[in-house]
């Protein structure tokens, strides 16, 4: 039964991701992407990584995509369904990225070890946490520092706009929306 479930989930992931890329409407694209994350999360669960599976939903589907949605709902996107197809010059960054991904996948496929057992034993929270904060502790700290930089940067950009009261029309609109709500 497990292979059948896996193939269904894999198909859902791939198809939903394709739709997320092809969809012109940003909100619809987000819904497709969340579907894809959900299916992917169940695949992680079946591979014996329940912690990764749950974090996939909490962080990606539940936090990052919600913030995307929040921003998109605040912006007036006009009529995205009337947008034209991307022209020749818009293609090459996507092509470069696609080529890099494909090359990486091929390299992995060619150089994989002989005994890559599919579903090992499930890794519990304790083992996961010990590996994350013990073996990879420094990497975790470096990444969290990077997030802090991003936070400070965002704060700086937001502050500068507030002081001058100009620029960033879109952000300004969102803020005025919130400000109006303060005194209903």
């Amino acid at each position, binding site marked *: 039964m497990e292979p059948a479930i896996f193939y269904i989930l894999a198909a859902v992931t791939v198809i939903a991701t394709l739709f997320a890329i092809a969809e012109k409407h940003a*909100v*619809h694209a987000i*819904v497709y992407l*969340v579907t894809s994350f959900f299916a992917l999360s169940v695949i992680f669960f079946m591979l014996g990584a*329940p*912690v990764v*599976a*749950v*974090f996939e*939903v*909490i962080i990606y*589907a*539940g*936090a990052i995509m*919600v*913030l995307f*949605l*929040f921003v998109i*709902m*605040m912006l007036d996107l006009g009529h995205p369904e009337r947008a034209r197809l991307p022209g020749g010059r818009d293609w090459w960054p996507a092509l470069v990225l696609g080529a890099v991904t494909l090359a990486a996948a091929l390299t992995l496929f060619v150089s994989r070890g002989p005994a890559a057992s599919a579903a090992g034993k*499930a890794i*519990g*929270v304790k083992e996961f946490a010990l590996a994350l904060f013990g073996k990879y502790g420094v990497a975790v700290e470096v990444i969290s520092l990077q997030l802090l930089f991003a936070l400070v940067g965002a704060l700086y950009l937001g502050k500068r706009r507030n002081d001058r009261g100009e620029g960033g029309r879109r952000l300004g609109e969102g803020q005025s*929306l*919130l400000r109006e*709500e*303060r005194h*209903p």
Partner: protein
Amino acid sequence: MTDLTLDITIHLAKIALIFFVVLTLAAYLVFAERRLLAWIQDRKGPNRVGPFGLLQPLADLIKLLTKEDFRPPQADKWLFYLAPAMAAIPAILTFAVIPFGAPVRLLGREVPLQVADLNVGLLFFMALSSIAVYGVALGGWASNSKYALLGSIRGLAQLISYELSMGLSLVPTVMLAGSLRLSEIVAAQKGVWFIVYQPLAFAIFLVSIAAECKRIPFDIPEAEGELVAGFHTEYSGMRFGLFFVGEYINIIVLGGLATTFFLGGWHGPLLPSFVWFVAKTLAFAFFFIWMRGTLPRLRYDQLMHLGWKVLTPLALVNILATGWWLMIRELR
């Protein structure tokens, strides 16, 4: 019957039981809320249908089902249809990890009264509660109406903010129980309930779940005084009913979780474990109704202030204090 089919049958029976009990309870919670609010406000409430008005939920259901299922012409068709389900499903799915009674012996085997005892049970609940945001957000956005959009933007901001303090307030219980598995968290409270060790975490959790189920005083996504009905302004008939029932399912589920995390789950003297669990859960539901009859609505900025500047820092300090306390206890 082989072992596997027996297993599947027992699981399906548990799922059917949960669906039946939770949906019935949700319907009667609506009725109980109307009666209790009426008493608080010195009215009688709905008392015409059946004895004491007990058949009122049925009458409401028939009314909702026979209403026109209207969709605004400019609305986004699929998302408008899907959003109510997105609001109700995560709520009832959460019940899968809640242990609602002591294990029972059935057909010569130990059957835990819990659908799935995941080792990441608490995180599973956090994941589903973060998904529940989509129903509110997409419902309001897809309606293509100003009131609905404002309601859903407020809802999004509120749910994201209070999810944070809710998650952080649960960390001390995990530290005390030493597990994210809900059955082990309940087992760790066999002697002393966690509310005794963690009154602050309990208070933060209680305020956060009130905000998570968008109840007064945190009902600014719906705020009927300002936004007509907020994110579900444009909904009618059973689709509105699904939003509504989803909210009440959410109350039951979050009450059940508060019971599991802080009030010792199904532990209790004399009465059967199942009864204890339901009684504690309904006590939370009663508390929410009481709160609705008592408190005025917060303003948007007050809500954000409370969430980000009071509850979240308090929860963080509480985690630190719990860590120190556990370390000192270990040293002795």
